[in-house]
């Protein structure tokens, strides 16, 4: 089966792994090979153990994430199963999904030097390699920059560079573009291709936006829901996966009747806002929103897109009265926003946060839902019926006695949405709703949102995930430099 003519560099032989506290293995009797200088894509549905494959290769399984491992991992015929991750880093490097998670220092130079210092490199060698790798990732001269002040794309480049600088033979990437805007995503993909083709480094990538890199992938490993391998072959032979990727490339606009007469639920005109300079309340800093216009109709599924830092999250803060606009008007259901009491406002509009855990307060899913109805009218029985109905709608009936914090990522997200809709909110705002969610959970969530739109709710979603925008949104607004530069129906937005 593994008939690629390249040199075999890594092999997983008959591996089975059960996480501590779990009854079922993440995968059973899994065997596969990886080849020198090739790009391998690992795909599969939610929870099939894709990221666990990377953790196994890097040694985090079983040395950091405890559990029971059977089978062997071979690097160039050498059994490295018992080797700790800290001793594998000369040959194997792992880039995590969120670069913030792996940074442990403050500046670019410190972060890049960290691995080499641990390996005992001389100061001269460290300095030389830092210059080399920064030039490779296109960030020459960034040595003294603080990590916190870099953009999302730059952070991901530094995360990759901090591994590349140790010159590993194998680079493992866990959804490296999941939280990036389209331009940064394209840059990272180009970088990954260059790493494999020019540096002859073996790349193993878990990535759901694989459509952008599919032409460059050499080998595809696909796992099914139970973690069984269903595809392990050259890209050309992986017909099923390619078909699905092509489908995601295609524009699939939600078939929806056009109702030009639909009620305007949110109307923003000439909105301008700048944050005050830190420590000087009267002095304003950079203009975040500048003469911004936006109109949302009832039952719109609106997507707000744009690069990091263009003002998308600030817009949410203004709509939720967390900040006050410097000028301009926001009208909600025809009334000026300033006339709404916040309690009434939050009963009309809901906000689902990037991190669903932030909004959890109670110890069980049931209490969490009941909490949202605590200050509303109606009898206890009516409230319980409402919660029961929402739990059913969001497929959480079986989890009502569990703590919200122990639910799966998909369940947590559904709970956060459900609790924001309990008082019949008419507009639901979603701030990067697919952040940290795997492909299947994203699709599932979007389908739930689509149903809500059909039921009369208006959805406004801030996202970077253009593939989801294509699939589900009805209208797209693109923000650039604080202005809505494009406002088009999805079909027209993706025409070019």
């Amino acid at each position, binding site marked *: 089966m593994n008939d690629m003519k390249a040199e075999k560099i890594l092999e997983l032989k008959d591996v089975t792994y059960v996480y501590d506290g779990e009854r079922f293995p993440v995968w059973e009797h899994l065997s596969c090979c990886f080849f020198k200088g090739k790009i391998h894509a690992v795909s599969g549905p939610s929870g099939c153990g894709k990221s666990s494959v990377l953790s196994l290769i890097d040694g985090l399984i079983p040395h950091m994430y405890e559990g029971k491992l059977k089978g062997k991992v071979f690097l160039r015929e050498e059994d490295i199963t018992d080797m700790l991750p800290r001793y594998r880093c000369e040959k194997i490097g792992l880039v995590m999904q969120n670069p913030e998670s792996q940074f442990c*220092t403050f500046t670019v130079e*410190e972060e890049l*030097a*960290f691995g080499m210092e641990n390996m*005992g490199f001389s100061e001269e060698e460290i300095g030389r390699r830092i210059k080399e790798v920064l030039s490779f990732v296109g960030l020459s001269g960034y040595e003294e920059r603080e990590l916190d002040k870099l953009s999302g794309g730059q952070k991901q480049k530094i995360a990759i560079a901090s591994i590349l600088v140790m010159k590993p033979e194998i680079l493992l990437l866990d959804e490296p573009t999941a939280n990036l805007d389209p331009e940064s995503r394209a840059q990272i993909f180009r970088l990954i291709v260059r790493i494999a083709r020019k540096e002859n480094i073996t790349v193993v990538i878990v990535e759901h936006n694989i459509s952008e890199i599919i032409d460059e992938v050499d080998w595809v490993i696909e796992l099914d829901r139970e973690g069984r391998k269903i595809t392990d072959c050259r890209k050309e032979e992986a017909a099923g996966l390619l078909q699905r990727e092509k489908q995601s490339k295609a524009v699939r606009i939600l078939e929806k009747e056009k109702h030009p007469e639909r009620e305007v639920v949110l109307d923003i005109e000439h909105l301008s806002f700048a944050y005050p300079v830190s420590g000087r309340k009267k002095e304003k800093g950079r203009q975040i929103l500048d003469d911004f216009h936006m109109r949302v109709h009832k039952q719109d599924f609106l997507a707000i897109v744009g690069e990091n830092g263009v003002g998308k999250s600030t817009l949410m803060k203004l709509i939720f009265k967390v900040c006050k606009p410097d000028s301009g008007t926001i009208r909600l259901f025809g009334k000026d926003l300033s006339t709404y009491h916040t309690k009434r406002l939050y009963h009309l509009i*809901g*906000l689902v946060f990037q991190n669903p855990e*932030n*909004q959890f307060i109670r110890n069980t899913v049931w209490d969490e839902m009941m909490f949202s109805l605590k200050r509303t009218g109606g009898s206890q029985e009516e409230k319980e019926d409402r919660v029961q109905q929402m739990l059913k709608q969001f497929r959480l009936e079986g989890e009502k006695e569990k703590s919200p914090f122990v639910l799966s990522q998909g369940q947590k997200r559904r709970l956060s949405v459900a609790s924001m809709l309990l008082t019949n909110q008419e507009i639901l705002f979603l701030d990067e709703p697919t952040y940290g969610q795997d492909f299947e959970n994203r699709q599932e969530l979007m389908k739930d949102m689509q149903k809500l739109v059909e039921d009369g709710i208006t959805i406004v979603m801030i996202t970077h995930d253009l593939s989801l925008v294509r699939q589900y949104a009805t209208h797209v607004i693109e923000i650039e430099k604080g202005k809505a530069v494009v406002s088009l129906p999805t079909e027209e937005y993706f025409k070019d």
Partner: protein
Amino acid sequence: MFAYMEQDSYLHRRNPMIKLAVIAVWTVVVCMSYFPVLPVLTFLLSFAAIWAAGKIPMGNLLRRLLIFLVVSALFMFSMLVLRGLNNEPGIVFRLWIFRWTERDLVHAVSLGFRILALVTMSMGFVLTTRPRDLVLSLIMQCRVSVVHGYATMATYRFLPELQQQVESIHLAQEIRGIPWNKGILSRFTSPFRVLLPLLCVAARRGERVACAMESRGLGRENPRTFYKKTAVDRTDWIFFIISVIGYGILVAVLIKFDLYRFSFAAIQ
């Protein structure tokens, strides 16, 4: 508030351990003073040193200290109110139902300025010490293990993010109908409501950073090198000696003029 501020100054160039040692000596001495002159002078000296030798603009420093000035003032005020209700002999000042002895006044002002002096010194340390230098200094000068040193740095790195998380949790809970910090009950219960989501975030973050550091070779048995190093040079020692001896002379002068007491008992 407590964050490093990039400057090229005399204090910025000093070794973190030496600065900590000076602060430790001054702290011990000022805590033994039961008369307000030394705490007041220590506060003024620290403030002046951070401004002049640390090149931290005075307005900026005052803004950072404002909350602590208010806290100290409130502390002194509440102490005076409580102490003013006693009925001890030797009353030197009366106002309405309150009566104070000299000891009451000295006690309140000494403790208030002691807090202020300690906060100012700590703030000066944080403002003029790069976190990396502190960790390197802990590892190289104090022989703290590399693993613990970098764990400290990772924690330090997480602190600003923690603040953002707290703000995000506030907003999320407010939208769910729990007014934040409105009313006495809410002020008491709000920290507990933040705690669980925050702990979840911190635990997950800690685990990921530990994995990231392990998979980049932290804890290997081979000798570790350091791209940037911290050392204690002659200027650091001179700074230490002058600071300690100078402070010692100040204390001696105060003792000579009976302005430094080791106990409130001596004050009537």
